[in-house]
């Protein structure tokens, strides 16, 4: 049987880090089962449910809730991810009592008033419409859709216009009832707060909710859908294209992951990496160019990003493909591996510079099912990756045949070059306003 995100326990799931240098407390309440739990046809439900928490309680209107937080100087942000909903922000310790009371009320007594729900849904729809103004984000979202299709990882957490517009207030109430339960919540407190006060805070938050079990991570199908193809997201008036190339990749459960992280750092993770050297430094083709691996629980996504001028687009894609292939099949030099390892090891203290960052690592353990404390062994795990291990991981996880290319650009300006590069049958085009 698959285990839930939150280990079953009588005590609230609390991550606490104390640091009294500055009078500020970072908090986060994680409610597991985010957009992965959106029912088909209602994508965006977790997100909209979370946003409606701030739209009023059984005791206070939306304005009274927001004024209550703002009067204290507190920040409260609600976001949804694939695996969880996050209610996070910060407050000053002198405001802890009224802040905790108000937060508990928001979490345990949301009213989901219909008028306010309509306003929030209208805002969510407006945000989805506005996505077309941000080429980089538009490319990222289309990329996920293109490589994962209709499956879980192809769906944006905020949903699509056509699905969000169908969500009803009752859908949100139902989602809330199913997820905002005591066994499905973790509380994070980092900063100027003692363990005793943190325990009290967590008990109040978790104790205010109905009892219920943790959500269970879904099985994720991550085989690529459109490997070897190019998608033009056609938008008028672009003199450069926002390009995302990549494919599904390794998750935290993969024994190769640390070797792959070292390899990817040398390939496209620093200013002296292969990609930056060839695309930016030698040719001046793109101000930004990088390769990243976003590891999830059992799978991840490899994404290379750059934004060349239209005339350089086809040669830039061709060169990135070549660099990717030569790295996959030929590996990295010993010097490259050594430099990447040193960078990751010596830069590690910045990953844990603040109590909030340290707490974030423990949150990631919960979300991604990582072995507890794996990141405290980060230096050891990176150090142990020699050139052979790194190159073998690149051979397994850099898969040139599976590479998909998605770009936001003006098809009339670039399509001919891309067809010449990939063949007419391998280039798809969609309108930038399409979902």
């Amino acid at each position: 049987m698959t285990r839930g995100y939150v280990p079953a326990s009588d005590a609230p799931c609390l991550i606490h880090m104390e640091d009294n240098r500055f009078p500020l407390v970072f908090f986060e309440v994680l409610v597991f089962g985010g957009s992965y739990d959106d029912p088909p046809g209602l994508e965006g439900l977790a997100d909209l449910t979370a946003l409606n928490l701030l739209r009023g309680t059984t005791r206070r209107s939306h304005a009274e809730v927001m004024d209550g937080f703002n009067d204290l100087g507190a920040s409260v942000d609600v976001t949804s991810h694939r695996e969880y909903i996050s209610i996070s922000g910060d407050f000053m310790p002198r405001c802890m009592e009224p802040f905790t009371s108000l937060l508990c009320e928001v979490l345990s007594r949301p009213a989901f008033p219909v008028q306010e729900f309509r306003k929030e849904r209208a805002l969510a729809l407006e945000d989805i419409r506005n996505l077309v103004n941000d080429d980089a984000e538009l490319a990222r979202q289309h990329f996920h859709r293109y490589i994962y299709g209709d499956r879980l990882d192809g769906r944006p957490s905020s949903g699509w216009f056509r699905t969000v517009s169908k969500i009803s207030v009752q859908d949100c109430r139902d989602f809330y009832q199913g997820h905002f339960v005591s066994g499905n919540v973790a509380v994070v407190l980092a900063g100027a707060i003692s363990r005793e006060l943190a325990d009290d805070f967590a008990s109040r938050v978790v104790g205010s909710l109905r009892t219920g079990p943790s959500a269970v991570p879904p099985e994720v199908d991550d085989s690529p859908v459109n490997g070897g193809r190019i998608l033009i997201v056609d938008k008028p008036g672009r003199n450069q294209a926002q390009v995302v190339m990549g494919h599904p990749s390794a998750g935290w459960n993969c024994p190769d992951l640390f070797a792959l992280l070292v390899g990817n750092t040398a390939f496209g993770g620093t200013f002296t990496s292969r990609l930056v050297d060839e695309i930016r430094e030698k040719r001046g083709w793109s101000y930004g160019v990088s390769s990243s691996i976003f590891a999830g629980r059992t799978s991840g996504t490899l994404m290379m990003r750059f934004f060349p001028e239209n005339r350089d687009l086809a040669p830039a894609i061709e060169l990135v493909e070549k660099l990717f292939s030569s790295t996959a099949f030929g590996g990295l030099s010993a010097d490259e591996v050594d430099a990447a390892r040193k960078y990751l090891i010596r830069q590690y203290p910045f990953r844990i510079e603040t109590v909030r960052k340290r707490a974030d690592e423990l949150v990631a353990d919960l979300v991604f099912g990582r072995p507890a404390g794996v990141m405290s062994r980060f230096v050891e795990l990176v150090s142990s990756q020699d050139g052979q291990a790194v190159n073998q991981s690149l051979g397994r996880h850099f898969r040139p045949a599976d590479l998909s290319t998605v770009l936001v650009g003006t098809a009339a300006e670039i399509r001919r070059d891309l067809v010449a590069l990939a063949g007419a049958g391998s280039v798809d085009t969609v309108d930038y306003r399409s979902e």
Partner: protein
Amino acid sequence: MHGLPSDLAGLQARAADISRRHPGMGSVRVLDVFEPSGGGQVVRFQLDNGLQVILWPDHSAPLVSFQTWFKVGTVNECGFKNGIAHLFEHLMFKGTERYPHRCFDKLLEEAGAQNNAATWLDWTFYYENLPSEALDLAFDLESDRMVNVVIDSKELDSERDVVLSERRYRVDNDPDGEMEEALFASLFPNHPYGTPTLGTADAIESINLSDCRGFYRSFYQPSNAILVIVGDCTYERAVELSLTRYGMIPGSPAIESPVPPFLPPRAGTSELALDVNSERMRIGWVTVPAGDRVAVALDVANEILFANESSRVFKRLIDDLPLASDVDGTSEPMRLAGTFIVDVIINEGEKAEDALSLVLEEIDRFGRDGPSAAELARACNHLEASFLRSMITVGSRATQLGIWHVTTGDYRQLFTFVDDVRAVDAESVRKAVADYLVPGLAVTILGRPSTWPHGVVPLEAAGAETEVGR
């Protein structure tokens, strides 16, 4: 927060001891010491060649932020080509004889450093956030490139292409970037504050090696720079490294960089055709320079009017009507003048003019009636929390010190900010709005979905004869 006079004489004596051990590197003069209420001690000292160093030790983690701030930005481009301050920032990574191209980044990355740079109207700064054991390396590299950068035409051409790519990314293909350029051009006509920091494409294309070398010689000197060090570095180490790495660089005469006087803004409304789905709007005013007490009152006003979900305009435009999906306000005092800018994203099918009327109506009401006590208290709490957020990492603390010192001339104003906010009363906030957010002086850029021809189209006669508020 209260700064207390501290052991200036003791620090001076310790610096003198270190200078004696390094003959030929000159001496160190301690300029001031400040003790923030949160603990620790900030020391500012100066070498004989004019280089200033601001040090805030914090040994809680073996990390340090090392930043080099040059008092040069777009404002110093008079007599030079537009965009050169920013392009030159890129060229600073091209290497020296001692550390050739790519060596700079390679050494820093292997040391575990995060490094980069930024350019704005008044300043250019370079930073390394790195393990403190590698601080010597940062001193070596930065002191070397302050005076020894080697640029050839091949490197210039390649980096020019990178900057043109950056411009396409940040301006040509970003509606917010396009609107910002249009707004600043109208806020500061015929003044370098109104020219693009990235440079126009034509100007970037025209910059040559001779321009770059002249710009470098003119502004990259110790007397025009401030080192900011926050983190795991003792006073002795900072003094010794400063002397031994920078002490031999000769001083120079005071830098003369003529800046034309400000002209009145081209007040009024202009339209910009953009590749966007709905209308959007930026309204800007010229306000006071950094360090002016009115700037604090404007920060408070911004909180009450625009900056959060309890603010007046947010509630009306987004919650009550709703006309817009986002509202934000920013008050940014710079060295010679400030700006107050309001951004609104209009809902599809709604008209920006309706939002503009409402914004101006709220400003007018505020200018007459001022804030309530509850609004004032809320704004103070918000600004205090914002200040605390900016203090969390060594890098963000160093950046705050650098910005405040370059723009106000006194980094200590950073630490009195929260007290200054709490000292503001309702009348001074009301008056700041009434005096500076004058509807007749507003520059408004309306971004329309591009069924319109590209380019800025003036809609109303510009109120160019109106003087800028003091």
